[in-house]
């Protein structure tokens, strides 16, 4: 019973970690977006036609132009995407603490799948 209660408490701690993570990532996104905010003009005009530009090229472009707002926004977005990855990793640790080896292996497979999925977006 004590082990079960500890597990539930651990699950909730992981969930609160996610909540604060979303808040911090959200702050980065808000600040970055605010720094580039313009009251006039249509900022979405340039997105009417799809033009694939890899992230490293975009980051280099914004670095050269010293557009720190965009870079802060990208940091917030990266943090947000990392959160579920960390959640799955912590869930694996939780299952190991509960001595549930099969579920821990399943969580590890999910984590490795998420890592692998990142590479799908990298152009060869």
């Amino acid at each position: 019973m004590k082990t079960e209660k500890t597990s539930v408490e651990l699950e909730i701690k992981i969930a609160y970690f996610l909540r604060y993570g979303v808040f911090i990532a959200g702050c980065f996104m808000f600040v970055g977006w605010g720094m580039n905010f313009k009251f006039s003009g249509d900022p979405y005009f340039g997105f009417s036609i799809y033009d694939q530009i890899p992230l490293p090229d975009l980051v280099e472009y914004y670095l050269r132009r010293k557009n720190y707002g965009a870079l802060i926004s990208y940091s917030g977005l990266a943090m947000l995407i990392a959160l579920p990855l960390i959640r799955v990793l912590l869930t694996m640790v939780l299952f190991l603490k509960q001595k549930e080896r099969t579920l821990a292996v399943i969580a590890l497979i999910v984590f490795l799948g998420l890592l692998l999925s990142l590479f799908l977006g990298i152009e060869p």
Partner: protein
Amino acid sequence: MYAILLLVISILAGFIGALLGLGGGIIVIPALTLIFGVDIRYAVAASLISIIATSSGAAASFLKDHLTNLRVAVVLEIGTVAGAMTGFLISSSIKSSWLYFIFGTFLLLSAFLMLRKKTDSRAEKNHPWSEKLKLAGAFPDGKGQLVAYKVAAVPFGIFCMFFAGILSAVLGIGSGIFKVMAMDGAMKLPMKVSSATSNFMIGVTATASAGAYFLRGDIRPEIACPVAIGIIFGSILGAKAMSELPANAIRKVFVAVMIIVSIQMIMKGINS
């Protein structure tokens, strides 16, 4: 002012989504494409970010209510992650016009699914995988009692999650509507557990393709940031207002709007 308009629409999307148990993507993607003229690929990528934000932010509430089955979620995530990766690869090969058409068709189907009566059937016995992995659980019935439930058809559930993952990556949605159908229809989980577990899982499903879209450069902060911030804020407001507003009446009006928008998306796909 366009940016402010997008923020307001995203807040509204989060508000209605929380009220009706939908993800904001179903509202934001048509808004971005039909109102702002953004290409659907950028809209899909931005929507996935908002899904990660709302699912991750709300995870604490789902777990505290003891409705989420974390073990079932992890097992089914194998299916959704594999599906999302497959969906990303498929979306890279599809023309934008087809994406509009598929999204419009999905929206039309979702509108009719929202009107269906939800049944709460229970499994009589656990699937052998459920026995081995101890997936069965119990949930509070609102009267202070814990109601036990069993978990059936685990392999079929993973199979359904694979297709839900494909839809998530291709259309930028959480696929919650299909996940809940698979969990409550096939796996015989109680409706409340299915909804909570689905909401818990959609963040991981979205991440499986969002990371790839991010590195490919499809997630643009000018679009994704106001969408994510707006949907988070709107869903917090929606959750607080849920008990005060007539959700059923709003659902019927929303279904009518969804049908109109789905036809517009289908026409945009045909005309592109």
